[in-house]
């Protein structure tokens, strides 16, 4: 580290990062970062592209799992504390992490639900006025300018009044008045005991806005100096310097031997142990609680879980009503498919109705894929998935919310398509057993489909991969649904009716539980 070390902050540190290491593949991104930020302290993190700034931010936010080392927020270990600790962090990224098809007000209301805030309207109004977006609150985010989106992203980050704020290039896209507003906001938040870490490529802002400047180089903190001790020229010199005059402590740590590097992924090399900064748990708790004056819902457990499930599902429905991207496509594709089947088969022969079960289930499978592809795809594309994952919400609630909205979309499509099948094939479809078979079958389908949609959301060519992964796995469901529907429509009192229903129910139940259990694994390092 650079010669003039900074004095330890008087307040107990809210952010403690110790020996943090992270690799992508075999490429080391963070090579043993140590950082401590106290309440009321603003730290600017500088570094060239690829230095590891965003990875460090994501690790502190709990979005990226470190290979080694530890992050403690308010005294609690990020890995051990679980999703509740996310309540104490607010993040602004260079991506807006907002829902483009919701308006500003709806975005903040949705995230207020995710953070269990009670009666949030007053705070939302205050925040929207603070960031000068109150007059535009009913406008869709996609109609906002870049600066407005960034201001709304800042409002979202501080909505739940977190004691820890991570701002990854928050000044990107802001004009000078907006940047000034952001500076004032940072000062105001620091004055009320928040710990703020922000990254920027703007040296002047780094010095003016922060108490301390950290320079990240090759995945380790190379320089850590008080902002008041540095001039712009000195900071530039330090920034461009390849090697500091003396090896720093951080660099000594980062220059691990080849043997060490090889061992990083070995099972014996997972945990670096805990950090003892010399503060008691009570002190940490006092700081954290004092910094969160917003009202949170008191009820937890199952009620809070289902409230979030409902919030995710209703947000999807609201988004769909605005964009009409999924339902419209599914319905039109479904009707077209039925019409094509109608043209393909000779409907004058009495046996024509035998194809009806096949038509229904094939249409269900193919229209469903269209909807499922958008389930997580659009969230990942616009970055809103990241903000959802940063909220103190169990991954299972996100999964259930997505299943609920996906199931609803499939049923709306079916209710539009089935009358067309009825008219073209002249078959009485609306029978209780047929509807029950479709109800159970579509549930099993959406459960597995939602899991696979989440799996493929981050992969290349997800549009083509999802059906390839999904359709073979759906065969038992397809076989059972097809046989059941066929037997009922034929009026056959089939002894296997119970067996088919059992397969449909078992499929939905078994894969529902399995998907719920493994869903967390998908997003653990997103």
């Amino acid at each position: 580290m650079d010669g003039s070390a900074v004095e330890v902050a008087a307040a107990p540190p809210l952010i403690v990062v110790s020996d943090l290491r992270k690799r992508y593949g075999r490429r080391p991104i963070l090579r043993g970062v140590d950082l401590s930020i106290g309440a009321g302290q603003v730290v600017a993190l500088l570094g060239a592209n690829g230095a590891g700034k965003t990875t460090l931010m994501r690790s502190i936010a709990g979005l990226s799992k470190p290979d080694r080392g530890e992050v403690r927020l308010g005294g609690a270990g990020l890995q051990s504390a679980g999703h509740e600790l996310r309540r104490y962090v607010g993040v602004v990224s260079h991506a807006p992490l907002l829902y483009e098809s919701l308006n500003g007000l709806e975005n903040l209301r949705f995230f207020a639900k995710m953070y269990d805030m009670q009666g949030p309207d007053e705070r939302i109004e205050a925040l929207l006025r603070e960031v000068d977006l109150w007059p535009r609150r009913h406008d869709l985010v996609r109609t906002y300018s870049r600066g407005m989106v960034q201001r709304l992203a800042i409002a979202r980050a501080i909505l739940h009044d977190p004691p820890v704020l991570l701002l990854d290039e928050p000044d990107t896209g802001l004009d000078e008045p907006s940047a000034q507003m952001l500076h004032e906001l940072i000062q105001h938040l620091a004055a009320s005991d928040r710990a703020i870490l922000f990254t920027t490529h703007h040296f002047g802002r780094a010095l003016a806005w922060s108490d301390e400047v950290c320079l990240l180089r090759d995945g380790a903190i190379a320089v850590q100096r008080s902002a008041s001790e540095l001039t712009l020229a000195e900071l530039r010199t330090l920034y461009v310097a390849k090697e500091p005059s003396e090896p720093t402590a951080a660099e000594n740590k980062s220059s691990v031997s080849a043997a060490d590097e090889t061992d990083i992924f070995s099972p014996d090399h997972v945990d670096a142990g805990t950090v003892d900064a010399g503060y008691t748990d009570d002190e940490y708790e006092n700081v954290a609680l004092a910094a969160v004056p917003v009202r949170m819902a008191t009820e937890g457990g199952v009620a809070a879980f289902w409230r979030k499930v409902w919030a995710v599902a209703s947000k999807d429905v609201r988004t769909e009503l605005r964009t009409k991207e999924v339902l419209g496509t599914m319905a039109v594709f479904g009707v077209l498919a039925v019409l094509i089947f109608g043209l393909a088969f000779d409907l004058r022969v009495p046996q024509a109705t035998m194809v009806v079960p096949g038509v229904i289930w094939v249409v269900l499978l193919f229209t469903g894929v269209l909807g499922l592809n958008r389930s997580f795809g659009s969230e990942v594309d616009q970055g809103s998935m990241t903000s959802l994952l940063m909220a103190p919400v169990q991954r299972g609630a996100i999964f259930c919310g997505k299943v609920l909205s996906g199931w609803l979309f499939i049923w709306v499509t079916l209710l539009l398509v089935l009358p067309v099948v009825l008219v073209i094939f002249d078959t009485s479809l609306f029978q209780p057993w047929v509807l029950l078979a479709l109800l159970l079958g579509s549930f099993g389908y959406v459960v597995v489909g939602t899991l696979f949609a989440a799996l493929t959301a981050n992969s290349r060519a997800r549009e083509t991969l999802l059906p390839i992964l999904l359709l073979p796995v759906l065969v038992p469901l397809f076989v059972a649904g097809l046989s059941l529907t066929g037997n009922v429509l034929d009026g056959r009192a089939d002894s296997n009716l119970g067996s088919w229903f059992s397969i449909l129910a078992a499929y939905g139940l078994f894969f529902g539980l399995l998907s719920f259990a493994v869903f967390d694994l998908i997003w653990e390092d997103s």
Partner: protein
Amino acid sequence: MSSSTANQSLLAGIGGWGWAQLLLNATTVLAMGVVIWASLLYAKPATNLAGAEQFAQRIFYIHLGCAFAALGAFLMSLIGSIAYLITRNLDWDRATQASVEGGIIFGAGITISGAIWARPTWNTYWTWDPRLTTALITVLIYVAYLLFRNGIDNREQRARFGSIYALVAFLTIPLTYESARIFRSIHPIIWDGSNSEAEGGFEGIGATMGQTLTVALIGFCLLFSALMIMRWQQLRLEDQVEGLRERLY
């Protein structure tokens, strides 16, 4: 380097597990030779069949051997995927991938050998019999696994997502198998039960048939083990090369 030094370093490289692997590979080659000999020459023909059908019946040893090896491979992929999700050791992920690739090869073996047998027996290479369909879908599920892996760039993410898919994929198979069994099938059941509607089955397994079948099952299991270990080593080397490349650039 002189040839004696080269031989010495080769032998040193083979040492330890290398010798065990060499022994496994040699045993596998020998066992597969015995399987072919026993299937074609040693096993007595099925007495209730005649002509081309009787000769085609001999493929049954290869067919069942492939089925046994494929089952082992997919079971191994299940174990590998669970072990990876628990330990996060990439060796388990490599074991899953190697097993799936082996399983696909043996799955293709089941389908091809079945089609060759079906031509003289059922007078067609392929029919949408539930058993045949099930086997084909199983292979397709695992082909999808390989395609899926190919679509993910991050190594750890590829391993994690691949393991989740392999887990779900394997658990689908019993359900697929069960749902297909409810349908009537013309596929003969030789092992564990019978099928009155089967076409082309043979009555009972005689002494030489039983011995040949045992040798075939052992031989194919050895073949799968040898292939899996070699592929696992190759995948390990691929990762090492990738790591070196990343360090260089």
